[in-house]
């Protein structure tokens, strides 16, 4: 308490406490989840009417575009429009005789910078990717078309509910809703056993994380007496719980964040939970792009950013340290696996895990702005990359192996794909002046700016992330150099469009087996002709690629005041936090400024009284936020050059150093051979799936079988034994039934005698 007594005034004095949206937002923000929900209902209607055209797709795109327009409109209102919009009362139950104490969860929307930012890219990307999908799943018209867009719409609705929720329970609704849609969409090609298994795996692993979230909700409710954000954050801002008791230095600020973290890690595929995301690539590519790259997987980041005040209320920053370390380790771990992967979509999947690791590291290192900005940019460039991969997959019969594709960019109709891919790769690699460059830099710089005293091992995390950034550049361009440039070559995949869907498939495949249009390709597959993306797919890719370029400029919006547009948004949200070395406002120049105390920082009497307890860190003696531009640029280029050296083709696109002539023969093979079995291990994802199978799934399955047998034999056996007891007794007494009349008569006589004697005795006794 004494420690807290010192901290509280500091807290209240801090100019940049968590922003709490106090006003009321306009009711029409409900259109953001509402329009997709309408779309989902429409898709059901279309399915009932047996619509066999692309109508569901276009209707979806139109409604999603409406959602985006709504988001834009809300955004344009600026901070004035931030607040809570309550639509209707969902769950309301009193907890005792006291009528005030109740658990309330409304369909209410909490609009602040954070949800605004998220909604902008969620609705925007959903519209574009929806457009792309209208063509991508076109072969399923009348079959799974409605189902696809139903789930797509439902996903956007759920995501909107998650992001805009004004209470933890509605957030949980969205949280589970996106999980369901993810399940439905991963399993879209339901005849593929891998897809079904992947869908199941995704849902179940998410559920494990959700248990943490559920417990966190429970604990939050018990401690604060509410699940609604506004009162919740008001209490946290004052450092008190629902009964006015201080929460600093208690389990509350450690356990609840850790439980939330478990939920976030499940959804965002971090650390122990990452295994579902690569498998989720079994789903249609637009789904991977939207759900498993751009939006749903960032829900974990959103959750932590949303609940950041609670994390920051801990002096020791236990939970944030955990988040930072886990993020960094995941980022690095996923990158190592990528080195040895050959499926371009899976590479993108692991890359997503890795990038999510960056975001979590950013959050953990107290750099909410960087993390959120990275979420935003990543959504664009990763979606671009996925859509390009999808175009390749769509065109080459589901072929995804980078050993079997080469020079795709030079094939007819794939030029746009190649260019967009290039732009995406540049951004992911962090080449200077791309979106990814700026956002990743903020996280990297934050790692060095945040003093180790606040987040244990921040510097080491920074170094790990720098290494990972280099690796990222390498593996990104590995894909580009091998698949998109170089000698033209392809081997079509086993199925058309990467899936097999009954009747539609046959007709469609036949259409492509047209030898007269044969232009280029493998001699072995003369019957196959690549299927270039059409206007919708190209349009979507171009839109996203342009978006990827443009979002870089956001870094310069409000640069002075808030370190970029994302900073402005974050400042007007609960994620607002005075990151070390990155003060808000122009009157506080970075790095040299005395850093304002974070929430719940050690009390002055423990540090130097009245003085900042720790200075922002430096990188090689420089302001990390300045020098990092150069460091990361150099590292990124090193990674690209390495990729070129090992994988690039001869000629200009090989930057003059590449020497690849065949699709599958590269310098890297020789290097890999030196490492013995290690590349093999990496290709098999370090056998983590197998490990889980061996230590969790298998024992659980055995346990289930044991339980089943136990239930049958022991428990039911006992019951049957009890049932058999009378039967056994009956067998014992059976001979007494002689079947002869006399036997019964004798028994009757003796019985009457005994009864009379008994009566007499009783009469005498009483």
């Amino acid at each position, binding site marked *: 308490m004494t420690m807290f007594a010192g901290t509280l005034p500091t807290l209240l004095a801090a100019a940049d406490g968590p922003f709490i949206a106090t006003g009321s937002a306009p009711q029409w923000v409900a259109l953001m989840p509402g329009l997709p929900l309408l779309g989902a209902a429409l898709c059901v209607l279309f399915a009932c009417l047996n619509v066999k055209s692309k109508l569901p797709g276009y209707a979806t795109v139109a409604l999603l575009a409406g959602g985006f327009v709504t988001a834009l409109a809300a955004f344009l209102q600026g901070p004035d429009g931030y607040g809570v919009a309550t639509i209707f009362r969902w*769950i309301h*139950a009193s907890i*005792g*005789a006291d009528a005030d104490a109740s658990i309330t969860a409304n369909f209410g929307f909490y609009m602040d910078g954070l949800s605004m930012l998220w909604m902008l890219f969620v609705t925007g990307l959903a519209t574009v990717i929806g457009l792309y999908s209208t063509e991508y799943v076109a072969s399923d018209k009348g079959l799974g078309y409605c189902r696809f867009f139903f789930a797509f719409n439902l996903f956007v609705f759920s995501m909107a509910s998650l992001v805009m929720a004004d209470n933890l329970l509605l957030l949980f609704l969205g949280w589970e809703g996106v999980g369901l849609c993810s399940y439905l969409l991963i399993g879209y090609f339901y005849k593929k056993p891998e897809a079904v298994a992947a869908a199941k795996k995704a849902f179940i692993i998410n559920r494990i994380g959700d248990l943490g979230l559920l*417990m966190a909700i429970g604990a939050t409710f018990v401690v604060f007496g509410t699940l609604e954000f506004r009162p919740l954050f008001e209490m946290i801002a004052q450092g008190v719980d629902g009964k006015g008791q201080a929460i600093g230095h208690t389990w509350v600020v450690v356990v609840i964040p850790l439980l939330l973290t478990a939920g976030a890690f499940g959804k965002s595929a971090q650390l122990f939970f990452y295994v579902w995301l690569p498998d989720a690539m079994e789903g249609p590519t637009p789904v991977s792009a939207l759900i498993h790259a751009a939006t749903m997987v960032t829900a974990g980041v959103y959750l932590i950013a949303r609940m950041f005040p609670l994390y920051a209320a801990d002096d020791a920053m236990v939970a944030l340290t955990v988040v930072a370390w886990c993020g960094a380790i995941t980022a690095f771990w996923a990158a190592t696996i990528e080195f040895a992967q050959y499926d371009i979509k899976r590479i993108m999947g692991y890359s997503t895990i890795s990038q999510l690791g960056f975001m979590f590291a950013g959050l953990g290192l107290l750099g909410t702005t960087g993390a959120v900005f990275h979420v935003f940019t990543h959504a664009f460039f990763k979606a671009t990359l996925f859509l390009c991969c999808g175009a390749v997959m769509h065109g080459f019969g589901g072929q995804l192996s980078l050993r079997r594709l080469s020079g795709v960019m030079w094939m007819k109709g794939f030029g746009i794909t190649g260019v967009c891919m290039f732009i995406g790769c540049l951004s992911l690699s962090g080449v200077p002046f791309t979106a990814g460059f700026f956002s990743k830099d903020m996280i990297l710089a934050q790692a060095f700016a945040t003093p180790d005293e606040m987040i244990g091992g921040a510097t080491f995390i920074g170094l790990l992330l720098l290494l990972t950034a280099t690796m990222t550049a390498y593996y990104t361009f590995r894909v580009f150099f091998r698949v998109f440039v170089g000698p033209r070559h392809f081997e079509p995949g086993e199925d058309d469009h990467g899936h097999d869907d009954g009747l539609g498939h046959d007709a469609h495949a036949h259409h492509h087996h047209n030898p007269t249009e044969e232009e280029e390709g493998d001699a072995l597959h003369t019957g196959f002709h690549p299927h270039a993306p059409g206007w919708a797919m190209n349009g979507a890719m171009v839109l996203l690629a342009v978006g990827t370029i443009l979002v870089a400029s956001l870094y310069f919006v409000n640069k002075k005041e808030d370190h970029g547009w994302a900073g402005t948004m974050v400042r007007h949200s609960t994620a607002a936090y005075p990151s070390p070395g990155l003060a808000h406002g122009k009157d506080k120049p970075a790095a040299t400024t005395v850093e304002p105390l974070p929430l719940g920082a050690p009390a002055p009497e423990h540090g130097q009284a009245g003085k900042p307890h720790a200075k922002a860190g430096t990188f090689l003696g420089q302001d990390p936020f300045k020098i990092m531009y150069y460091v990361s640029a150099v590292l990124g280029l090193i990674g690209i050059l390495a990729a070129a050296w090992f994988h690039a083709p001869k000629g200009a696109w090989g930057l003059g150093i590449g020497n690849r002539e065949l699709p599958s023969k590269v310098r890297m093979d020789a290097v890999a051979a030196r490492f013995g079995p290690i590349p093999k291990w990496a290709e098999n994802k370090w056998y983590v799936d197998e490990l889980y199978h061996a230590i969790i799934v298998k024992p659980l399955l055995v346990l289930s079988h044991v339980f089943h047998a136990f*239930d049958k034999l022991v428990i039911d056996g006992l*019951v049957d034994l009890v049932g058999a007891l009378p039967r056994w007794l009956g067998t014992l007494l059976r001979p007494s039934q002689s079947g002869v009349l006399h036997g019964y008569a004798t028994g009757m006589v003796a019985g009457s005698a005994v009864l009379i004697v008994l009566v007499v005795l009783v009469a005498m006794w009483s």
Partner: protein
Amino acid sequence: MSLLHLLILTPLTFAVAIALAPASRARTIATIGCLVPIGPMLVALFNFDYSRGDLLQFAANIDWIPQMGLSLGVGVDSVSLLLIALTILLGPICVIGSYSAIQDNHKVFYGWLTGLQAAMVGVFAATDLVGFYISFEFTLLPLYVLINLFGSSNRKRAATKFFLYTFTGSIIALAGLVYVVLHHRGIEGAWTFDIPTLASTAMKMSAGEQALVLLALMLGFAVKVPLFPVHTWLPLAHTEAPTAGSVILAGVLLKLGTYGIYRFVLGFVPEAVIAYAPLIAVLSIVGIIYAGLICWVQKDVKKLVAYSSVSHLGFCVLGLVALNNIGLTGSVLYMINHGLSTGALFLCIGMVYERFHTRSMDELGGLAGTMPIWSSFMVFFVMASVGLPGLNGFVSEFMCIIGTFQSSPAWVLEGRAGAAGGSLGPWFAFAAGFGVIVAAMYLLYMTGRVIWGTPKHPHGHGNGHEDGHGHTPPSDLNTREIGLLSVLAVGCLVLGLYPTPVIEAIEPSVERTLAPYQDLLEARAQALMLTEGEG
């Protein structure tokens, strides 16, 4: 004669009519007989005063043996009313859902089914112990007949086991109830079987007596629920029962157990409940996880859903012994929700069984391709059962878990804002939470096997007629079936998105039930504080 008498007598009259009418008319009469009570039910629902949901409304008394205090009293508080509504709703669904499944012996089937309806309403409507118990036991008979005559291959054994097992339990419960009645007579000197009156005197029993009564009542009602170690009759009965029987069994009959716990165990012996709540909760949690894991290795879809009922009702009982508003409200809500979603699941499985004559997951597969409408409904109800927010299962499951989470005495001692009395706590909730994961595991496993995957052609499918024409793929659902499932689906959706009216209706009844617990729990918390102070 009140509305409730009408609700009991209408199906009974129709059951008699079915017995008397020619067999060809049985189905029509049963349909009408199940649809007619919807009218009075709606009247009851609209005329009920929800703000005083704790009072017994529509009460009426018909004297039976006044010398013994026996009467046929009826009356409902909000909880009974909602459960009656559930019963009345499921009635026509069972009858109409059996149109194609039941080929002959219409009189017996529909007659008993309609009679069962009356008995179930009787259980929930009775305010008199004798009326309650008679109805309670009478529910066994129709279901016994339904399983025994219309079940699958092992039906005789299943029916006998079902009957004997639950009957044994009920007899033990009867002993407990009789003890309460005798105790009342001992104190007041007059016979009465009026449940509220008995509740008020039962609470005055000593701790030892209360424990005994609790044991007897719990033994009886736990079998019915069924709670973990006494659950083995349920999978067998469910697997063998005809679809309508399964729907009623899962939808309403299991709720008789939880309703019994709510009304009698919680209502009669508060002290003992507080003392034994952790034990019951442990059993519930063991049941949740244990049954869930068993589900995971089932081959028979129906058996899987049957075991899932054991798992799900674990949550229901857990919510009841949380002994706070949220837990109890959630639990009552759970009774309704489970009736809707699991009833629908059984209905779905029955529809597939009619078409393929198998329920084995080895033989079924890829139904999404062959029966898209059915698959959509199935996924919907699976998700409702998994507890997906936005659907009904979630609200109640969440409330049960939060109620459990809250119910730690430690919270009260620490003066937490969201604390509510009880003797469980976060660890119980955490353990129960694993049930949520396991539920996803087994239900998605089932979905993956049955709905997704490549279509299979089960051996048992089709009879001679169809074999003659090669493999005619079974048709998807017809309008009748879609209609039935749609009703349940709408129910699931509405209760998932707008449960507040129901929650608010339940609350007064729950508050009355919990009224005696407040002081006891406070005293207990203070005692704990003292011991902690000493320690």
